[in-house]
């Protein structure tokens, strides 16, 4: 294998791995945005999921961590739902406040549970599960078939979300709610319930995204470790045009932008590392500028 093939193979595998939490969170946010709810609390749900997964994994192994992370994500989304959907307060500001609350809560709990200095917490993590045969496909094998289980789950959710949104009755009701709450209500759809359930589902996936970050990537928790990934997930939904396949492609694009760091370092390019840090955010802005004009958001989004 030539050197460039090695770098490319590593790059693709890293891109898929890094994009997994983004894909999960964005798929969740897409579902609630399709129901007309824009939830800036994704970032908070993801952060809560990350801490919950660390606590759960430390106590009962990685899968206990995954379960606890989903619950934490649902709880954060539940707080958002109560204020923004049931009481109908401004969704943007509610989401911001919910994220702020998560930052405070996770920071406090983390320091209380694991000590103020935050010593390198080592957790049982989810190793990758190579799929025999397929993983040996050149270049693409390691990227697609030698990944942690949560990556496979994230990818399986893509067709599942598509089927749910576009082929099931509930998906139809959900999309109708997002396009016009009044029309949906008139035809008998329980609008608030649909929006609440969609938001809770979004929260569950955001929590799972946080767990992925901790258990399948970093292996530990740090304060504010999500570093805006939840907000990037919102940009991914826009770039992916509120469609599961589009969201997958957009998430991979962002994963790729981050993975480029390692590839360029491997090629011996010396660039300030901050440039790589800002790349996903810059890309998100460019993507929004390019995508918004053409794609159409659900008509009732945020109302």
């Amino acid at each position: 294998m030539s050197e460039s093939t090695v770098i490319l193979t590593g790059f693709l595998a890293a891109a898929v791995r890094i994009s997994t939490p983004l894909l999960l969170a964005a798929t969740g946010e897409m579902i609630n945005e399709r129901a007309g709810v824009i939830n800036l609390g994704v970032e908070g749900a993801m952060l809560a999921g990350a801490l919950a997964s660390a606590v759960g994994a430390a106590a009962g192994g990685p899968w206990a961590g995954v379960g606890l992370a989903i619950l934490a994500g649902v709880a954060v989304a539940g707080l958002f739902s109560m204020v923004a959907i049931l009481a109908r307060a401004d969704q943007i500001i509610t989401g911001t406040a919910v994220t702020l609350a998560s930052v405070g809560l996770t920071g406090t709990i983390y320091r209380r549970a694991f000590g103020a200095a935050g010593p390198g917490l080592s957790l049982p993590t989810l190793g990758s599960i190579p799929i025999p045969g397929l993983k040996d496909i050149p270049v693409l094998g390691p990227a697609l078939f030698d990944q942690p289980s949560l990556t496979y789950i994230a990818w399986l959710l893509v067709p599942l979300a598509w089927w749910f949104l576009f082929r099931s009755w509930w998906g139809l009701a959900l999309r109708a709610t997002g396009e016009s709450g009044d029309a949906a209500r008139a035809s008998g759809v329980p609008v608030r319930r649909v929006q609440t359930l969609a938001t809770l589902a979004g929260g569950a996936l955001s929590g799972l995204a946080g767990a992925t970050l901790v258990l399948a990537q970093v292996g530990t928790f740090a304060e504010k470790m999500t570093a805006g990934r939840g907000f990037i997930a919102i940009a991914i939904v826009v770039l992916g045009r509120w469609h599961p396949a589009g969201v997958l492609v957009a998430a991979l694009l962002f994963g790729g932008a981050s993975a480029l760091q390692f590839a360029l370092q491997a090629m011996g390019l010396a660039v300030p590392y901050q440039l790589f840090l800002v790349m996903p955010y810059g890309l998100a802005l460019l993507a929004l500028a390019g995508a918004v004009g053409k794609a159409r958001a659900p008509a009732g989004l945020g109302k």
Partner: protein
Amino acid sequence: MNGSRLRPLVTAGLALGSGFLVLAVGLTVAGYDPGLALGALWRGAFGSWYALTSATLVRAVPLIVLGLGVALAFRAGALNIGAEGQFYAGAIAATWVGLHVAGWPTPLAIGSVLLSAAVAGVLWIAVPVFLKIRFGVLEVISTLLLNFVAEAAVSYAVTGPLQEARGVYPQSDAIAEVARLPVLGGTRLHIGIVLAIVLALVLRVVFVRTRIGFRLRAVGLGPRAARVSGRIPVTRVLAAALLWSGAFAGLGGGVEISGVSYALFQNLSPGYGFTAIAVALLARLNPVGVLATGLLFGALEAGAQGMQREAGVPAVAVSVVEAVIILVVLLADVLARRRVAAPIADAPADARAS
């Protein structure tokens, strides 16, 4: 005093009470001594002359200046969630200028530092303004994303072009003496507090007495109606509100460099840009109210440090108080709106129409 004038105070009291209740319950559940912790919070904020001036008021200054900026944008229905980033843009510019003005007359040096900070804030928010006008990108997301870019820019600046001369620590050298704001003897309180009060009063006059204030409110209450009326250049009002908002936030960063830290480093702001949202909302976007809520949140931030020192409670816990305050204010607004006009409440102030 009639009911509608009293209501903001009642709401504020309720929000504050809820915030502290949640904090006290949370501390108890977490196994801290809530009495000790809340006492430490009080002492850290108001326990002595030094605590009041050098902890509370010093933190109130950036919160007031940023809170005014946030209120300005929110009045027009433009949600600037990026005050944190604009603060850092201002801080970078102020530091750079502050390092180059040695030997200048003091007023000119300070003026240049603060002006460059405000301009940097404007430039930083100009990107979201352009994206909003040209491509319809929600300013909420674009201003938010730029916060992370600004933090990376600070990180780059203090390890690269602005790093201190020996190149050891990730921070800048101290700015020239002439570029520093005068300080009240024996304390850390600087003249920026006067600037903050003046800005609040000016903004109050602009909001209440001028056509600009009327336009801001008209656009904030309903951009579509304002546009249809034909008398109000909605896009221009929105852009101006956001750009001025960025100027305030950038200025806040400059004042922090010139009055408090004298140098740039990472985490210069403990999240002032986000707290400023709570400051503005709790004040109901009223500039004079921002003076009060800025002071309150300054006390909260100062008290949080005291709580961490004395009771071992992580300072970040007060973020929860801030979040509860925002949520309660939102809920109180919803209730008030329902009472006023039940059917119309289905169409809230159209803040996110792009």
